[in-house]
């Protein structure tokens, strides 16, 4: 039942915030804060107290018939993986509300409604274990996100919003066809029509069919992740979205792609995924290097961060298809760390844009003197993003590389090159924006340092990335049972990965 509340609270809250926006903009802001805090508390109450990895995999479940005629039920299940991602979602949504306080001044009620509904959709994606319900939420989260970009974005927002929508919707429909074929095959073999994920696990089919179905799912998630060559929507969407939109996109929506790969692609089609792994890992390595290279070449600060996201998400793709405990632990930490560090960078870029009305680094420079706090945080998160030991991103990338080393040395070597490239573009960002000669800021520049709300947000984010870097063990404990269930179902019947997966974490 608590899972239903987890969904209902932000959904209803969104409607309330919309209504209250008509009375006074502040009301919808406060309602959003209260609603999200409440939801965060609900989610926190689900954390299992165990300090070892020996608690049951499913923490909570909720099931009601929904469309019984088609074998569809409203089935929500929560394991450690979902929980960790939901916590990240709610924390980042809460932060998005805070940092939009001064940035969003038009149609404030509708803005917060869309923000809360995006959150609802994402939480639904992380909870749904009925494939139809999953698809429902998958599509549902697009609509409010589209409006966030299209209504409150920057100069080229309509183009970016439509591109984002078309890419994700198109790939989503391919996944729908794959889901239906899977369901019909299952019905054909067992005589039972169901969209239940747990029932569909281990459906018998020939390897060609399995490969095509796996590809259908893979494309949907690879677009969302995004993996090269499906990444072209991301720089536009990130750049044109309002700050809160970028934070949600980078912090949360990209993670739904990673979650989908973990939860669905490999467990449902273990053998096909295993056969496909070299291709996926090649795409991952290309993504890591190509994203880093493009990030290096950007003048627009937001685009730089966006391309760095592509590079970081490449690591996640690599880790998922390495599919052993080390790599999967790394994937989880990388998701969290990337959400926090990239979210923080987007917030800082947004704050800079509020002050100097440009994101172009050619006009920046020497900001450290006038904006010491903003610049310090900027440097910290740039360094976090390049993977400095002691910070969260390092743990994620290191574990992923360690895990993939067991599977393929070549891919690991090339992927590790991405770390070097990350150092280059991150330091370049710091250098161009915060150091050097004082830039020629455009007219209307008002240089004032971070205000208290931003400071609080940045401090929280800093603490969490340091915590994740120094002591990630609680996260591992939370996700371990869930991941081991996934690993068992995702184990290919042949191949070396099966052996590696046996090793304890």
């Amino acid at each position, binding site marked *: 039942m608590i899972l239903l509340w987890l969904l209902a609270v932000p959904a209803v809250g969104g409607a309330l915030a919309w209504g209250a926006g008509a009375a006074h903009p502040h009301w919808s802001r406060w309602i959003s804060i209260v609603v999200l805090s409440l939801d965060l508390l609900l989610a926190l109450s689900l954390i299992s107290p165990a300090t070892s990895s020996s608690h049951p995999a499913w923490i909570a479940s909720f099931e009601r*018939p*929904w*469309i*019984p*005629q*088609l074998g569809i039920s409203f089935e929500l299940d929560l394991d450690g993986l979902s929980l960790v991602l939901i916590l990240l979602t709610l924390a980042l949504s809460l932060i998005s509300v805070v940092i939009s306080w001064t940035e969003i001044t038009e149609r404030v009620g509708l803005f917060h409604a869309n923000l809360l509904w995006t959150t609802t959709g994402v939480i639904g994606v992380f909870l749904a274990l009925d494939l*139809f319900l999953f*698809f*429902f939420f998958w*599509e*549902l989260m*697009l*609509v409010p996100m*589209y*409006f966030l970009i*299209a*209504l409150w974005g920057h100069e080229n927002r*309509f183009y970016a*919003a*439509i591109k984002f*929508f*078309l890419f994700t*919707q*198109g790939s989503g*429909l*391919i996944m*729908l*066809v794959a889901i*239906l*074929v899977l369901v*019909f095959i299952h019905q054909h073999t067992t005589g039972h029509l169901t969209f239940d994920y747990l029932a569909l696990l281990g459906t018998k089919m020939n390897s060609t069919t399995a490969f095509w179905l796996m590809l259908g799912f893979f494309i949907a998630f690879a677009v969302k992740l995004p993996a090269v060559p499906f990444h072209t929507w991301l720089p536009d969407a990130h750049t044109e979205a309002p700050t809160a939109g970028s934070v949600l996109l980078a912090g949360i929506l990209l993670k739904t792609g990673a979650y989908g790969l973990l939860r669905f692609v490999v467990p449902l089609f273990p053998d096909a995924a295993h056969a496909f792994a070299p291709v996926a890992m090649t795409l991952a390595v290309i993504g890591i290097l190509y994203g880093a290279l493009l990030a290096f070449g950007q003048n627009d600060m937001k685009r730089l961060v966006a391309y760095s996201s592509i590079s970081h998400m490449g690591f996640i793709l690599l880790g998922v298809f390495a599919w052993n405990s080390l790599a999967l632990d790394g994937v989880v930490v990388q998701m969290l760390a990337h959400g926090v560090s990239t979210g923080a960078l987007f917030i800082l870029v947004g704050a800079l844009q509020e002050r100097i009305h440009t994101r172009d680094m050619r006009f920046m420079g020497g900001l450290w003197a006038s904006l010491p706090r903003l610049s310090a945080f900027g440097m910290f998160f740039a360094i976090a993003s390049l993977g400095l030991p002691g910070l969260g991103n390092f743990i994620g990338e290191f574990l992923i590389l360690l895990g993939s080393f067991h599977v393929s040395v070549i891919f690991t070597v090339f992927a590790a090159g991405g770390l070097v490239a990350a150092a280059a573009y991150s330091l370049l960002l710091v250098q161009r924006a915060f150091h050097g000669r004082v830039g020629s800021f455009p007219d209307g520049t008002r240089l004032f340092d971070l205000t208290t709300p931003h400071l609080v947000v940045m401090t929280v984010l800093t603490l969490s990335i340091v915590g994740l870097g120094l002591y990630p063990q609680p996260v591992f404990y939370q996700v371990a049972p869930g991941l081991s269930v996934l690993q068992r179902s995702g184990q290919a019947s042949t191949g070396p990965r099966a052996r590696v997966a046996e090793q304890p974490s």
Partner: protein
Amino acid sequence: MTTAAFRAFAPFTLLGVLTIVVMLLIAARRDHRFTALSTIIGLSLCCVVLFFSAPDSPVPVTPLFIVDGTALFYAGLVFGSALIVAIISYAYLASSGHPVCEEYYLLLLTATLGAAVLPESVNFASFFLGIEVLSISLLGLIAYASPRQGAAEAGTKYLVLSGAASAFLLFGMALIYAELGTMSFARIGVEAHTGDPADLYRLVGVAMILTGVGFKLSLVPFHMWTPDVYEGAPAPITAFIAVVSKIAVFSVILRYFNLAGNHADTSLRLGLSAVAILSMLGGNLLALLQNNVKRLLAYSSIAHLGYLLVGFLAADSLGNRAVAYYLAAYAVTTLGAFGIIALLSAPGKGRDADKIEDYRGLFHTQPFLAGALTLALLSLAGMPPTMGFIGKFYLVAAGVGGRLFWPVVALVVGSVIGLYYYLRVLVAMAMPVEHIPVRRTAVPLFGKAVIAALLVLLVTLGVYPAPAIALIRVTVGQG
């Protein structure tokens, strides 16, 4: 005619009586409000009576009709849609200040009568009569109340092409009758089954019937009239053409194919698949080029009929149910979309609010209608939480279940293309307004209430479709 048959046929008899009553009322007293009110009450009564004929079904009524679950379901859709069109028409005409508009309701009723007998038809005679009554009444409605540009053009175009379509239809029927000697759908099925399977006369006959029906359903390549007529007709009538006539014609061809066993003809299936793919792709691609919302929705309706053909081609119970749900979703959505256009239009001004620029900044000037149109467009695009989403899911399921590879691919590609132009309208509505639009029509409250009711239906059955699917299982599932 037995008592059971009489009871079962009561809604349709009532509609016929109602038409005559309204005609006499107009003769007695010309009063717009009075005529509209009696039409609306009469149509609501027909909807209610429908429920009383349900227990007697299925029952044959003369050799021409059968009243069964399928027929009642589609007749219900026709009555309900006609009712909503009537209410919206009142709001639309009342704002026009047109002195004489009572006959409009009379034509609306005869058109509805023609549409309502089609789902029950099991014979060429009733098939043809229904289609002709529908088309001839529509002709009057399309050109009605016209300081509008293009009304006469639209009317003439419809007259000529609809006439040509009817000729094809009639010729096809004649060929089949000449070959098999019967006009009853079921007998045709039996004769065709026992006879030569590659019977050329029969196949040519069916192909000609499909050509005629293709015109009425505006499938590619018989779609050329659609955008012009949609644009030229008054907005409520556009809704009627887009919804009521499509539902009626689709239901009769569905029954014909099921009873006459035409799904077994591979060549026909091949041709229909091609028509479906062309409609999905062509409709969506051509819609990309439009700057007029009515034309845009016209092309989009071509694509939607193409989607429906996927369920039609699946030709099993899943396909039939998918078609039924999708038609219901399409009816609710399209009525909502055209209803909003009608409410925003002031027909006295010479044209409806149909340019995309007319919708610029609608979120600021008419937030409720803009929100409603957003939901309607999302439903047309097949996004949750609307009926369109479930409908599209159902159709894809039917297509996948029927192993229709290329039609399903076209459905997916078409949906993605479609999304683009629906979003264009959304973007226009969200644009900031530099100047307050010239035409800010006061929208009557009951008009908004109708739209609100449609929205509630759209979202409720989009989030919790089980009751609708249960109803479809009880009614359409039998046939």
